[in-house]
């Protein structure tokens, strides 16, 4: 019961904060603009766990500006987070990687302006879990997968670590961009606390028993299923289903293109050297063939750049939106479960009411056997039922609130997510187009200058009377 209360209390708090968050946000911005006293001074960059640590790197402005393009208000960003410097740590039990999280902020709820901590993947998992727990119907950006089975060999492979680092960077920045999530206590803790503090903080929260109870309820609710889902959520669910399918296919296509391009590059690398070899046998043609070999090699380098750009900028984003789709499905399920819980309680109330109002007297008869006065028994029963009904009504009111909050929170966040998704994907595809345009332009220049040099040679020869 306590947990339920605290949950609903949090939910309403969430609701009200959310309702306020939007307008408040802009007001906050204004405050900052006018604040002349704001100073940015470097805070002590303390070690977290005492193991190997390289000297803090000054964060350049360019690295603060996130590589990931955001749709909303880049000018009014007041918190900048960078994830970099992966390092491996070896203990007796295990080896793992930590990442440096650098935060620069002007927000008043932060005690200082700069923070630097080290976090491992587990810590990110914890943060995500907490946020999902507290805001079940908000859309939280996905984390990179634990293990990518296909294509990657080890957890400690350089490419894997780099891909993961970038994804973790995006994850934190997406949260920082979220008007509600970025104000979360646990998020703040994640960014600022030392290792020991974080470990002890992690241990807080609802007890294991209550969490088990929660899970059981959730499973029961999902089994029960929601009965009267509002049309708009069904529509969103359908959209998410289709979106998910399309993203999966897009992800596959893009990865396949990347693979084909890499293989094309490998074959092209063999092409130039053959022309070079040939030039050795030829007298008149030697120079032309050498030039040809050089052109092809230059084009190879451009292809390599193109391949890398697509791998780094396009592939990961599409993959992330595949994960996003899964997140969305989970959020919708949770919303459904909240509603199902409410519906179940309603059903229970109806049952109890019909119990009270019915004249069924099997229980009185039974009570009679036990030597109880049937009238008394009936009255006792009635009283008991009334009490239960009152309790149920209270619970239902709270659950109704919870459903309301969950739904409105979700709807606002859904719109927000849609916009963000559009912005991200548009930027990604524009990036892809730009990469390819740039590639072809560079190759065009290479071949055009080759052509000019060859034609010059020809005209020189013709001039010499080599008709």
């Amino acid at each position: 019961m306590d947990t339920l209360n605290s949950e609903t209390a949090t939910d309403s708090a969430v609701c009200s904060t959310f309702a306020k968050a939007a307008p408040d946000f802009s007001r906050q911005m204004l405050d900052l603009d006018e604040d002349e006293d704001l100073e940015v001074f470097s805070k002590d960059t303390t070690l977290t766990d005492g193991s190997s640590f390289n000297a803090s790197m000054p964060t350049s402005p360019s690295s603060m500006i996130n590589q990931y393009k955001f749709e909303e208000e880049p000018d009014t960003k007041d918190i900048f987070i960078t994830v970099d410097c992966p390092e491996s740590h070896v203990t007796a039990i295990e080896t793992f990687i930590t990442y440096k999280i650098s935060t620069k902020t002007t927000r008043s709820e932060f005690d200082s302006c700069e923070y630097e901590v080290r976090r491992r993947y587990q810590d990110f998992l914890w943060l995500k879990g907490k946020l999902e727990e507290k805001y079940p119907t908000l859309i939280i950006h996905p984390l990179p997968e634990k293990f990518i089975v296909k294509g990657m060999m080890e957890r400690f492979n350089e490419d894997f670590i780099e891909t993961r680092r970038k994804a973790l960077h995006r994850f934190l920045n997406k949260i920082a961009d979220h008007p509600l999530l970025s104000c979360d206590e646990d998020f703040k803790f994640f960014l600022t606390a030392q290792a020991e503090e974080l470990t002890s903080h992690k241990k807080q929260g609802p007890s294991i028993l209550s969490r088990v109870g929660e899970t059981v309820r959730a499973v029961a609710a999902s089994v029960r299923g929601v009965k009267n889902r509002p049309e708009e959520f069904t529509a969103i669910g359908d959209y998410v289903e289709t979106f998910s399918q399309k993203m999966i296919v897009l992800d596959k296509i893009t990865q396949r293109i990347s693979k084909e391009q890499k293989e094309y590059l490998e074959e092209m690398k063999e092409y130039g050297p053959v022309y070079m070899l040939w030039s050795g046998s030829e007298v008149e043609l030697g120079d032309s063939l050498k030039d040809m070999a050089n052109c092809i090699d230059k084009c190879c380098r451009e292809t390599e750049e193109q391949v890398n750009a697509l791998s780094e900028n396009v592939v990961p984003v599409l993959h992330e939106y595949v994960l996003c789709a899964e997140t969305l499905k989970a959020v919708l399920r949770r919303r459904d479960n909240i509603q199902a819980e409410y519906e179940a309680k309603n059903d229970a109330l109806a049952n109890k009411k019909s119990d009270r109002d019915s004249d069924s007297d099997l229980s009185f008869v039974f009570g009679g056997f036990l030597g109880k006065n049937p009238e008394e028994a009936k009255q006792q029963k009635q009283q008991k039922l009334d009490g239960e009904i009152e309790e149920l009504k209270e619970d239902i009111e709270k659950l109704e609130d919870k459903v309301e909050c969950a739904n409105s929170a979700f709807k606002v966040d859904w719109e927000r997510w849609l916009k963000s998704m559009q912005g991200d994907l548009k930027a990604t595809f524009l990036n892809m187009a730009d990469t390819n345009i740039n590639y072809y332009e560079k190759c065009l220049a290479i071949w055009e200058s080759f052509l000019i040099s060859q034609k010059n040679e020809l005209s020189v020869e013709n001039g010499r009377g080599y008709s």
Partner: protein
Amino acid sequence: KKSPPPPPLPKLGKVGSKCACGLGSRERMADSGSDEVAVIGNTDLTAAEEQNNRNNTDVEKSTPLLKKMEISVSEAEKRTGKNAVNMQETYTVYLIETRPVDTITEGQNPAPDSLWRRYSEFELLRNYLLVTYPYIVVPPLPEKRAEFVWHKLSADNMDPDFVERRRIGLENFLLRVASHTVLSKDKIFFLFMTQENGWKDMVYETGFQAKADSRLKALNATFRVKNPDKRFTELKHYSDELQSVISQLLRVRARVADRLYGVYKVHGNYGRVFSEWSAIEREMGDGLQSAGHHMDAYAASVDDILEEEEHYADQLKEYLFYSEAVRAVCRKHELTQYELEMAVQDLTSKKLQREELATGTVRTFSLKGMTSKLFGQETPEQREAKLKVLEEQILEGEESVKSKNSECDEYVKNAWLDIDRFKEQKNQDLKEAIISYAVMQISMCKKGIQVWTNAKECFSKM
């Protein structure tokens, strides 16, 4: 554009071009080497014919056939028929069209003469030319079977793309021969293009097959020749290198083409997915849908790109096969040189024998010498007879050496003239091929820029 003809070759023979039948016209005996014409068959020329010959020689000395006649291989068709072992087979025939140039320039437009030939007849013609003009680098035919294919092209000889490329290759062959100062004058070649029936018999009747050097003979000579002209050795080495490098190039090119095809075609999938996705999107729908069309266009563009590249590959292939023709010329030199060396060796040994017989000394070991020592000497009369025979043989040998010597010189001179011509042609052709490759790449890049710029515009409307 053909390179201008080299300075007129020494008189190779006169043409009785007005004579319709193949027999009786002049025929160049490849291994006679003499300046005189060896005419088979009809040796009686009338005064008019002699004058005709002189005229024709003067005119035709420096005018390749191509200048007087328009030639093309314009069509290909499937035929079925019974083959040599009486089995039903399907084969392709090609239409050769010819038209005298002057009729066109005079403003008329007569229908061309035409006949159908199949690939095996082209092969026959080429073999004839190889044997008849061994000192000429004879233009190659397009490949018999598709090689260096990448997965999209089939290796099937009946495939229409293959047939089309072969048609072009055959036309190229005819044009090359027709623009060659020496080869274009050949009667059999002329009749190949103008006389459908009975041509095959005529070719066989030239007896060229008997003149062909056996592979074994040529191989033997290559191994045993002691003093070949250094230039030919170098040239043979070069042709080996050329063959090797072009083969490598064609192999890599085929693999690159394969990969490029894959990259472009996978983009086609974007078109479908974008279209499906656009159905559920409000604002992004239009942008996605139109971008998808451009992705389809991008995927489709690779077909044209690779077809053009195939043309470049064919140009390279021609010189791959040319390298074989060059090697053949070198081999023939080795053979003539070897035969000369053999003749010299034979003469020397016969002279030695004469000396021994005359002086009675035995300097070389011979079975005759041994047996005569064991079983008694010969009578002076026997020796006299032997000497006489030897003297005759020596005279013959000296004649043979003299003629083989001049044959060899003649061959070297003529061959080297054609090799120089070939080198210049090769340099020009390959340079043009390289330039056309660059032009293709430029066109491909421009198309790519176009498509992706269009797609970008669509994306920006998302």
